[in-house]
């Protein structure tokens, strides 16, 4: 009797383990018969963390030599994105021009490039690697002010928006 109960219990336990296999689809019981089952990804990783994300990398500081660089001065930034379907990044800076200042005198400058004036839309959910961008910085009036360290802050803002 004990042996019978042990075997029965084992069988029940095996069935309990195997149950998921029996949770979906239909049994095929005819020769040539077919049935379907669905495969589907999650938007979380095996730890359960959302995998959609992005990184916009900007320099902490851009140093411009006095008088500017003959080939131009640039603020180099980049981005990668891996977003959900129908999403893109909208990247913008807070100004098109400004003044570098030492607290007393000013050096005016203008910015040109993507994200300046109008928000830059990445246009895709997923980038192929890292996309590099440049904002040109044009400083004027070098000869009008004492030689000193002048500075200003350019603020980037990144939003995730719908691809229209």
């Amino acid at each position, binding site marked *: 009797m004990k042996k019978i109960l042990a075997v029965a219990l084992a069988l029940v336990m095996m069935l309990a383990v195997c149950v998921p296999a029996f949770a979906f689809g239909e049994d095929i019981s005819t020769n040539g018969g077919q049935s379907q089952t669905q495969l589907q990804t999650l938007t979380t990783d095996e730890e359960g963390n959302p995998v959609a994300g992005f990184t916009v990398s900007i320099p*902490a500081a851009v140093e411009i030599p*006095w008088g500017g660089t003959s080939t131009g001065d640039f603020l180099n930034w980049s981005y990668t994105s891996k977003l959900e379907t129908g999403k893109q990044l909208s990247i913008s800076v807070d100004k098109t021009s400004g003044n570098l200042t030492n607290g007393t005198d000013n050096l005016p400058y203008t910015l040109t490039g993507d994200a300046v004036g109008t928000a830059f839309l990445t246009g895709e959910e997923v980038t192929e690697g890292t996309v590099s961008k440049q904002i040109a910085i044009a400083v004027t009036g070098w000869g009008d002010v004492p030689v000193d360290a002048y500075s200003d802050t350019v603020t980037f803002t990144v939003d995730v928006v719908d691809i229209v």
Partner: protein
Amino acid sequence: MKKILAVALSLVMLLAVSVPAFAVDIAKDGGTGEALVKTSTQNEDGEEAAGFTVSIPAENIIPWDSTETDFTYHITSQLAPAKAVSVEVKDADEVNQMTDVNGLTLPYWITNATATMTGPIVTDQACIFTINVDSTDGWDKAPVSEYSDTLLFTASIVDA
């Protein structure tokens, strides 16, 4: 262990020398980041940008009998804040005598010998120094000849 520490220390020092400013990463929807745009005081060739030029003439001609003759030199400067160029003119041998080829002398003195700019930015500022020769004790007593002397200009950066 020592070798490991030595290598590690070398790496740290190398990184300290060569690493530029790190990037700022924005990874949050609606996130912001700041990039500091700043100037260096060196030009793209690595030379200090602050500087000045004092352009002095090769020769200054004094007409015979002229008791006061003005001469001009020029200053251009772009210096650090609150600095200025100062120029002093004096007789190189501090005897204040012009001499001719025969050793004859003609005494003189300089006025407007010092010029100090008022600020760091000066563009081709004309500065005047004056050579004075006394009529009675100078010109009238000197045989007519070509007398000359060398003047020394010294330029320095001072607080404005």
